[in-house]
């Protein structure tokens, strides 16, 4: 498996503001890579460096093994990009923009394959390509960029919060397209998002960034090991002390007649027999969600802000 995107210690500052502070990011060929982080973490800056729109201040960036700055145009023939906030030319129709971008990416827009693909996408996204771009809502502008990206095949799709502004039905269409691309075409996808369910559904591996640095990176399975599984069941007269006695059980709490505790994901199997002995009712075992993972990194940012607020008082 070859590496499609690789950054090492990537740095970028705008004036005094440090946007990227030694970011490491690796995307392997054929994988859908989730790129997660709160607003302002540096996701879009990274993407703009990878597209050669801005030049890295330090560290290295490689796309298909080449420098994204100096080989920008050559690399772009293999890349489809969907910006986070799609700006369009107000006096061009959506259909014109789609064809223009496809042609600029080197597609033959007269080929039957292109026309068929475009027709299918326009239909799937329920999009009217006749309207002038100034008449489109945010969601419809997003559709223009998405259709333009998917209408001609690419080796790498760089998608910057691609579903912002889309309704749930369109999000489902998007999900399907990504799955098709990854499975049938073996393309790689870098999907920046803060919609965790989307990432959980689509991505093989994720990188979580905060303040311009990657704080976590790996497959979802690997990352899940970093958080605990939550187990809960009806209280029904079960002694809380007995639950606390279970080896590996943490954070035992009683919430509205249900007892909750967490265990390291590796220990779940060994805990289950003890629960059987207690004859627990309506048992729920919730595997760790990405949301918890995210909050683990993002959460202490919130608390640290609280602290700094307290300190300034």
């Amino acid at each position, binding site marked *: 498996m070859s590496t499609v995107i690789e950054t090492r210690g990537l740095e970028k500052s705008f004036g005094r503001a440090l946007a990227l502070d030694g970011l490491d990011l690796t995307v392997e060929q054929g994988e859908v890579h989730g790129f997660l982080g709160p607003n302002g973490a540096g996701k879009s800056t990274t993407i703009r460096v990878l597209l050669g729109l*801005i030049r890295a201040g330090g560290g290295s960036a490689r796309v298909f093994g080449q420098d994204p700055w100096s080989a*920008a*145009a050559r690399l*772009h*023939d293999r890349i489809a990009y969907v910006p986070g906030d799609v700006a369009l030319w107000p006096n061009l*129709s959506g259909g014109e923009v789609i*064809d*223009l*971008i496809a042609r600029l990416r080197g597609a033959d827009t007269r080929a039957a394959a292109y026309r068929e693909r475009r027709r299918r996408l326009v239909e799937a996204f329920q999009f009217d390509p006749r*309207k002038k771009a100034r008449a489109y809502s945010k969601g419809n502008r997003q559709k223009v960029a998405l259709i333009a990206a998917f209408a001609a095949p690419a080796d790498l799709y760089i998608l910057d919060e691609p579903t912002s502004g889309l309704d749930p039905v369109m999000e489902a269409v998007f999900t399907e397209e990504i799955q098709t691309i990854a499975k049938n075409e073996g393309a790689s996808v870098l999907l920046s998002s803060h919609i965790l369910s989307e990432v959980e559904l689509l991505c093989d591996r994720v990188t979580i960034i905060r303040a311009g640095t990657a704080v976590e990176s790996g497959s979802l399975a690997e990352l899940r090991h970093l958080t605990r599984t939550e187990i809960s069941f009806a209280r029904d007269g079960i002694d809380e002390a007995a639950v606390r006695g279970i080896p590996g059980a943490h954070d035992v709490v009683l919430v509205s007649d249900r007892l909750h505790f967490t265990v390291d994901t590796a220990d779940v199997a060994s805990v289950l027999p003890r629960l059987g002995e207690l004859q627990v009712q309506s048992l729920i075992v919730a595997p760790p969600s990405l949301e918890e993972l995210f909050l683990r990194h993002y959460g202490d940012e919130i608390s640290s802000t609280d602290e700094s607020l307290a300190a300034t008082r």
Partner: protein
Amino acid sequence: MNALGILLRFRLRRDRVRALVWVLVLALSALFVAAALAKTYNTEPLRVGVLKLLSLDPALLALRGAPDGAGAGAFFMVEIGSYLALLIAFMNSFTAVRHTRADEESGRSELIVATRAGRGSATVATVIHATALNVLVGLFTALAMMAAGFGVAGSLTLGWALACAGIAFFGVGLLTAQIFSTSRAANGWGSAIIGVAWVLNAAGNAAGTTAPDGLHVTPGAAVWFSPIGWALRTRPFTANDWLPGLIGIAFAAVLIAVAFALQGRRDTAAGLVAARNGRPWASVALRGPGSLAWRLQRGSIIGWGVGAIIGAAAIGGLGGTLKDAMEKNPQLATAVKAMGSGHGTVFESFLGIMMTLVGLVVAGAAIQTMMRMRQEETAGTAELVLATGASRLRWYLSYVVVALVASALILALSGLVAGSALASIDAGLMWQATALALAQLPAVGAYLAITALAFAVVPPVTIPVGWTLFGFGIVFGEFGGLLGLPDWVRSLAPTTHTAVAPLANADWSGTWVMSLLALVLIGVGAVAFRARNVTTV
């Protein structure tokens, strides 16, 4: 504070730099021209000499103004009056659109309309804001004139005249902003109406009747159909008649009332001219950065082009009247000759002077095409193209090539139009006009190259640099001689280096130097643009 007060303060806050610039531009232009005229035409006999020649030549009457005696103030009005009115006209039309349609188009006004501020209050605030701006500009221009030593009554009349012309064109801008759904279209139509108003005033002056003393010209009826004409008929420094200014205010009141009526009937963000659907597929013609650049700029280029060709047609027409006038008065021939290079026939030098004006209009098209690069960058649409296989260099050169090719075409057409109109005077003028028009291309290239360089090196200043360049080009190149500017200042304007008629012994060195300079600057710009970040700020 009530909503209107908040909106009004918000406008002042947004426009604080802009308003200051406008006040300074108007007041300092007046002061500067007054000071220059006091140096070059400081005695009455000198002014009498110029005015007597001027009143004989309809072409000069059109480009300057109707003489109203040989006083220093009246002379000032002849030389610069209609141009000051033109400046304040643009200021007002743009201000009206900026605070109404532009906000609506961008969706910003939704934030305002969704509050207790009603749909109309933004427009009310804009009317008050613009009125205040005009009063300010009028007042400071009057103060500048007083500082230059002109009488209080005349200075105040000039201020009043400018403010009245300003508010009239504010009304025009407010109305076009209601009719068209984009600020681009509203500004385009506003500018076209300003152009028509200026031409009507010029035509009225050209058709004026000269008094026997040769120092007074009563303009024709056409000036009474132009807000610029109304303003100038206040005759500052002579009659000081404030009444014609009121026509401008009444005109504005009607337009503003219509604008409010229209706003009351239409949906927010919609125009009266309904948006049409586009084509569902891109045509074969739209396939790369070059065709996209053309598609984006063609409206603006065609607008400037029509202006240049109308100008060229006017040159042809004025050539005819000049011929008639000269047959009656041989004195005029010497005078027109003295204004140009001093070589060739009167018509050749006339053609030379006028073609630099056409060159400037075409430079406007080229400068605006270069500015488009910056607008694409800040809008985020440049990113869309640059993220595809189109390289930085190709994208940048697309705009340069579109600008150069369009400029060459407009110039050639203008030359042919002017030439065919003058061919009846002298068949040789046909090809000379075309060649002279095309000889403006290196000067246009220089304007283009400097704007492109600004875009590549200091992107945020692209648009101010472009317009400043254009303004200085007009002042240095077209008014330099009149203002008595030193030669080295005049020589900063590219149009002063173009070849002039007769072409047989024209000096082409300036052409080569400017072409080379333009190519070098475009090249440096290309390198600099490739080396910088694409940035929206």
